[in-house]
C-alpha cells in the first residue's frame, strides 16, 4: 500500500553543508542505485573556503528533463516525484543531462543509462524519509512538514521558485533562504 505523505517536503539548506558526504554514501546504499550516489557534494572552491555545495534533484513541477526526453522515459507521478529514467525506455541521449537547470541527471556510461534521484521512492512511498535527509548530520538536508521547518528555523523561509533569466522554474524541493525571501534569482533577466 502506498503511504506517501503529501504533507512532507524536502528542504535543502546548502549553507549548512559540512561536506561530510554521508548523504552520498547513504544514497549509494540503495539497491536500485548500484552503489552510485544520486546526490552530489562538491567543494565550491577549496583554495579559499571549505564551503561545499550539495545538489539533489529538485523535482520540478514542470520537469524539463521529462519534456525534452524523446523516449518518454521520465515521468512525474501524482505525488510530484519526478522519477529516474525507465531503464527499458532510456536511450541515453543525454537531452535531460543538458536541459536540467540544476545539473542533476547524469549519464552512467557503463550502463548507458540516465540515473537520478527518485526521492527514495521505495522509502517515501512507505511513509519513510529519504535516506540522504535522514542521515544528514548538519540539517543541510531535511525532510518533514512545513510547520516543523518553520518552528526549527524561524529565521529562514523555504523557497521553491527559481528564476533563470526569463524562465521561472517551480520545484517540489525547497531551498532555505533568509526570512521573507520568495524567489531565488539564479540569472537576472537583463
Amino acid at each position: 500500500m502506498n503511504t506517501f505523505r503529501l504533507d512532507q517536503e524536502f528542504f535543502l539548506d546548502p549553507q549548512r553543508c559540512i561536506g561530510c558526504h554521508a548523504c552520498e554514501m547513504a544514497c549509494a546504499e540503495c539497491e536500485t542505485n548500484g552503489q552510485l550516489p544520486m546526490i552530489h557534494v562538491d567543494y565550491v572552491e577549496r583554495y579559499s573556503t571549505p564551503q561545499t555545495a550539495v545538489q539533489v534533484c529538485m523535482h520540478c513541477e514542470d520537469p524539463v528533463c521529462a519534456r525534452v526526453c524523446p523516449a518518454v522515459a521520465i515521468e512525474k507521478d501524482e505525488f510530484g516525484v519526478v522519477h529516474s529514467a525507465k531503464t527499458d525506455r532510456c536511450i541515453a541521449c543525454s537531452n535531460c543531462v543538458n536541459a536540467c537547470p540544476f545539473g542533476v541527471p547524469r549519464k552512467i556510461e557503463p550502463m548507458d543509462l540516465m540515473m537520478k534521484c527518485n526521492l527514495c521512492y521505495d522509502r517515501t512511498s512507505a511513509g519513510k524519509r529519504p535516506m540522504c535527509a535522514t542521515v544528514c548530520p548538519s540539517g543541510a538536508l531535511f525532510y518533514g512538514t512545513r510547520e516543523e521547518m518553520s518552528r526549527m528555523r524561524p529565521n529562514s523561509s523555504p523557497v521553491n521558485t527559481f528564476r533563470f533569466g526569463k524562465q521561472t522554474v517551480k520545484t517540489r524541493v525547497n531551498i532555505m533562504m533568509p526570512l521573507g525571501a520568495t524567489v531565488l534569482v539564479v540569472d537576472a533577466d537583463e
Partner: protein
Amino acid sequence: MATLPATAETLIARFGPTLNFPRPEGIPGRDTPDAVVKTHCCFCGMQCGIKLVVKNNRVVGFEPWEEFPFNGGRLCPKGVQRYLQNDHPDRLMHPLERAPGRGFAPVGWDPAMERVVSEIRRIQSAHGRDAFAMLSGVSLTNEKSYLVGKFARVALRTRNLDYNGRLCMVSAGAGNKKAFGLDRASNNFSDLARAEVVMVCGANVSETFPTLTHWIWQARDNGGRLIVVDPRLTPIARTADLHLPVRPGRDSALYGAILHQLIKHDWLDHDFIANHTTDFDQACEAVADYDLAWAERVTGIPQAKVLQAAEMWGPARTSFLLHARGIEHQSKGVENVLSCINLVLATGRIGRPYCGYATITGQGNGQGGREHGHKCDQLPGNRDIENLEHRRYISQVWGIGEGDLPGKGLTAYELMEAIHRGEIRGLLSICFNPLVSLPNSAMIREALDKLEFYVAIDFFLNETARHADIVLAGSLHEEEDGTVTTAEGRVTRIRKAINPPGDARTDTSILLELADRLGAGRHFRYQTSEDIFNELRVASRGGTADYFGITYQKIEENMGVFWPCPEEGHPGTPRLWEDRKFKTPDGRAHFHGVAYREPEEVTSDEYPVILTTGRVVSQYLSGSQTRRIGKLVRQYPEPLLEIHPALASRLGIRERELVRVTTRRGAAEFPAQLVETIREDTVFVPYHWPGKKSVNQLTSGHLDPISKIPEFKVCACRLEPTGQTAPSPEESRAWASP
C-alpha cells in the same frame, strides 16, 4: 624479539589493509534480514544510535535509528559505512603465531594461550610483575574496560596498565577534576539549543563529531551566536559569527585575555563567584597583564577580535563552551582546559538550562572507559588508585587484599619509553595501535623491537600487532553485548548482532580464559556481559562516577541513563550542578590561576614553521577500521599538507608538489594543498595513516606534566619543496603505506 616477522609488504599482502567495497549488484539477504538490531556506532564519542541489518551471522547493512534522542537517525559517512568492517577479507579468524621469514602462521587456541601464559610467568618471575605491561583502548565497552582494569590488576598483577584515552581525554579529565571534582560533561547537548553564545575551542566539530553540528546549529537557528577558535577555517568555523585563528599552542593566552576583559568590563556573576567558587583572586592575578595588545602579540589574533569574543561571551544570559583535542593535545593541555573553565565560572553560567560546559569526548567509550577501567591511576567509579579508602573498597569488591592491588603505573607514552629502556619486557595489547597513534613513531617502533614477548588481541592485524609474537583473534563491536557512556555522560546499550566468525572469540572470553590460566579464575566468574556490568555497578557505587542505579533494563527503557545514578529509583542526571554542590572537597567550583607559558617546542631559524595535526571526516583514529573501508579511503585518499599560499609562495611550493617536512624527530613527504583557510605560520597534516605516510613520525613526545597527554598539536618544522609533483590521489596507496 619483536621485529617484523616478514617484510611489511608481505604482511600487507596477507593481512591488509584491504579496501572493502559494497557489491554494486547488491548485498544478499538485505531485503530479508534475520534481525535488525538497535545499537550504536562503533566510532566516536557521539555514539549515534544505528540499526544493523543482519543476515546469516553477517551485518549486511544499516538503517537509521530515528527514535534515538541524540542523533534522531543522523549519521556521518563513517557511521553509514561502518557495517563494512564486518564480513571483511582482513578479519582474523583464528589465533596466529609469528613465523619468522614468512609472517604469521595459524595456531590453535590452546597452544596460543599456553604460550602467552608461560611468557607472562617467565618475564614476571625473572624481572618482576611490573615488567609485563598492558595497553588497552576505549573503543571497548564499559564491561570490557572494567574487565581489562581488573584483569591487569588481579590476574596480571601489574601496575603498568594504560590506554589510548591518554591521547584523548586526560587533559580534560584532569582539568574537570581540579575545577569541579568530577570528570564529565556538565551538560547534555540539548542545552546547546537555546544558548545565546556557543564557544567552540579547538574542536573540528564538523569533521570529528559531525552529528554534533545539528545541536550547534540549533542554537544559531534560535538566534545564538557562534565563536570558533581554531588555527584553521574548518567547516564549522566557516559558519561561525566569529572565527579566532589562534596560533597553535597559544590557547591559554587567548582565554586569559578574554578573562581580563570580563574583569575589566565587570561581565562577572559576583554572587556565583562569592557563594560557589574559590580562588577567583588567583585567576584574576594571573591575567592582570593580559591586555589586548599582549593577546594579539602572543596569539596572532587581531585585538579587535579578542575584544569581540569577550563582548559576545561576557554579557550573554545563556552560553555553552565546548572544547576538544585542539586545546587538550598540548604540553599545557590541563592549563588550557582550566583557562576555559575560568570563563564559565566567572560568568556563573553553569548548572542551569542552556548554560553549559563540556569537553567533547573523542572515542566511542572515552567517557566510560576512563571511569571504570584501564587508566593507570584510576579504579572503577572514577576512584583514585593511590587513595587508601578507594583501594580498600575496590579490593573488597574484587575479593583481594588491599596490599595485593598494584599501585599507579606508567602512562601510555612513558610506558613505551620504559619498554625502550628495557625496563618493561612483555606487553599485552588490545584495541590500541600505538605505532600510528602515538607521537615520535621511530621511538615506538624501536621499543616494539625490544620486547621479549608481545601478544595482541585484535580483529584485524593492525600496524602495531604486526610486531607481535602471538595474535589472539578477538571480536568486533557488533559481536558482544555491553554498554558505553557517551560524551554527554549517557550510558547506552551496545547490542550483540552476530557471533565472532570462524575460530575468532569474544574479547571477554579471551580475557576470562587468560585470567583462569593465570590462576585468578575465581575472581572472574561471569556468564554474561550483564554479570560484569552488575559488578561494575557495585564497584562504582559511592564513587563520583556512580552507576549503581543503572541497569540494562533501565537503559533500554529510557534509551540511555545519565550518570551519576546512585539508586535504582534515581532518574539519572542529564545536567550537573543544578544543586550547586560541586564534588571538590570544599563543595565549591575552583578557579585556577593560569599564567601563560609557551609550548615545549617553539619555532627557530632551523625549524621556522609550526606543524599541527588533526583528523578528517572520513577516517577514525589510527584507521585500523576505516582504512579498510573502500569509500572512506577514496573520500580522502592520502594525508595532505595544508599550507597557506603566502607561505607556499615564499618557499616556492606548488599545488600537489611533494614537500619534505622535517622536525627534530624525522622527516616525511606529503603533497601540498594550498589553501587560504590556514594561518600563514602553520601547516596541518592529518594523522590517520601508517608507515611513511604517518605524520606521527614527526610529532614530539613532549607531555603535559599533569595529564601526560602528548603535544600533537604543536611542533616546529622545516619545509622543503622536492620539485616532484605527487602522483594523482587515485594512485595513492597511503592507506596501506609500509
